[in-house]
């Protein structure tokens, strides 16, 4: 019989001792100032985003087509957004899109990949676009949004996502593992920094795509590359954090911190 090289701690009933008061205070110290700072600067944040988007898009969109608008964001301040002319799709574009979606759905079914998660995700996305195509075929004049309206709503939604992330990331990193505050703070601000960069790039990209290829793609972009994609990088950064914490408690300085009770 082979000899065990390592005897690991029993995992069955182990737990870590958390100083709840300390963890709550630390979590609050991350979340509350970040939230206050964020809310107090909403005007500046959207202004900066819009200004950046304006400057970038100036390279590809004539300046006469762009302007800057403002709207109220409840009691939290004002949102500055990019105003762009609305372009509607040609009938042939809608038909080609519809056909393409149906072909993709059909192919995914016959090549027996429909059972796989990515295939199911693609089929869901295609079905959303099919619904969109049908809407534009039947009642294109009823489409309720202009590109400027979308631009305004996008920024408001992004602000909502950021507020949610401040709360969520604080909660999920604040209590896992004792100490390691620097790592927690880095993870917390890492999520926020990534989110800020991603949110701005996506805003510029969406505005460009919808300006260039029409508001026909608005539903697809929102429902497929919308909040779900934001959530994917939160989970990714959280996964790195969890992995580091596991290493600490299995092989590192925290190895003796487990309790059994």
């Amino acid at each position: 019989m082979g000899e065990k090289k390592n005897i690991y701690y029993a995992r069955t009933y182990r737990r870590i001792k958390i100083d709840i008061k300390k963890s709550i205070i630390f979590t609050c110290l991350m979340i509350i100032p970040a939230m206050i700072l964020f809310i107090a600067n909403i005007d500046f944040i959207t202004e900066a985003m819009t200004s950046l988007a304006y400057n970038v898009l100036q390279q590809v969109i004539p300046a006469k087509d762009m302007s800057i608008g403002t709207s109220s964001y409840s009691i939290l301040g004002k949102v500055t957004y990019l105003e762009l002319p609305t372009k509607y799709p040609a009938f042939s574009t809608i038909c080609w899109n519809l056909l393409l979606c149906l072909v993709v759905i059909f192919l995914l079914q016959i090549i027996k990949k429909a059972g796989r998660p990515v295939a199911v995700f693609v089929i869901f996305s295609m079905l959303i676009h099919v619904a969109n195509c049908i809407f534009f075929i039947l009642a294109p004049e009823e489409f309720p949004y202009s590109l400027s309206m979308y631009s305004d709503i996008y920024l408001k939604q992004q602000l909502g996502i950021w507020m949610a992330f401040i709360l969520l990331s604080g909660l999920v990193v604040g209590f896992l593992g004792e100490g390691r505050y620097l790592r927690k703070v880095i993870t917390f601000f890492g999520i926020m920094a990534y989110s800020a960069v991603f949110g701005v790039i996506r805003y510029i990209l969406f505005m460009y795509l919808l300006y260039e290829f029409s508001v026909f793609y608005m539903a697809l972009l929102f429902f497929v590359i919308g909040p779900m994609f934001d959530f994917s990088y939160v989970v990714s950064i959280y996964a790195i954090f969890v992995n580091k914490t596991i290493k600490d408690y299995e092989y590192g300085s925290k190895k003796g911190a487990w309790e059994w009770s």
Partner: protein
Amino acid sequence: MVVAFIKGYMIFCIVLVLIYLVRHFLFAMQRLAGRQRLYYNDIHSSDMKSITVVIPMHNEEQVLSYVLDSLLECDYDRDRMEIIPINDNSSDKTKELLDEYHKKYEFIRPLHRDCPDRGKPVGLNDAMQLATGEIIIVFDADYRPAKDMLKQLASAFEDPEVGAVMGRVIPYNTNKNMLTRLLNLERSGGYQVDQQARYNLKTIPQYGGTVGGFRKDILLSTGGFNPLVLAEDTELTYRLYTSGWKVIYANSAECYEEAPETWEVRGKQIRRWARGHNQVLFRYLPKTILTKHMNLREKLDGIMLLFVYAVPFFLLVGQIASLALFFLGEFSFLAGWWVLMFMAIYCSFGNFAPFFEIGTALFLDGIKGEAMLLPLLLFNFYFYMWNISMGFCDAIADVVTKRKVKWAKTARFAQKKA
């Protein structure tokens, strides 16, 4: 009017998901740092309970020798145990192989069923008629129990309040492919955190139909398993709780199973689970609310557990509702403050074991590296939402048409033992 209704429905979805989010967060925190309720590990009775190990089988020639050989290695008085493998209408060599075992070991007594009503509940009912043990312990044919498993599971029944016990399930084929690795994460979250936290909090640890046991007399006195219910395990959990018994979770009783290795098999499995679980929801929701045998805490968790396989269907309808709101010009409803709520929806999917719950489980299990797979669980959301919703619809059709359910076996992947 229509818009108001759809908005109302969206608010319902948001509230529902927030409730589950809080539940999962509480479970994760409790398991991570709360006091752990131990199992009955230190009970050493000189008079072990007489047990009957029952193994439902349908065409299991590939795997049956693993489970039987593992059971033969188990540390339990041979004169206090018997093994009844249920050969349920097999068309392969299951019968011959079981008869060979019977020749070698008298206490392995196969039950050969050759009748039209195939299925786990009816098979278990027949086996219970033959069983001499007072405790029935169930394993699926692809399981590999550890040496002390039977002792561990049987010891819980020294407590007269215990009606059933459930052990921990761990996949052994985790390195086979991406699916089995992801299932390992889900199982870790489901048992190490979810089941143990419910046991700690004295709510509803669930009997899972395998790696577990129950008192035979309770089942026999209440008419046995209902063949119209696919999730006989969930049904038993609620039958026990609504009549004053407890279910115990044994986190230390670890048993290895074969996780599905293809998405097609996993899809069918989860759809069947959803169908069975929702059949139990329809039958036991009023009983759970009205019973005098459960306290408020058990009722609350019991109700939430009953709805676990209904929530994805509600979310699917929610997705359609959000698309409708988009085209109705109510997009602003989805923006701003509401996103706070919508993010909660996204936070709580992933086979209903939210990401921090699975992250916590991986931390407690010390599984390094695998945490990096967490983001991939996002793609499972649509896969599970679709298959579970189909299972929910199946369950509704079962109620409406009163049709008889057909038992389907999960395909096996292990190579036959040489």
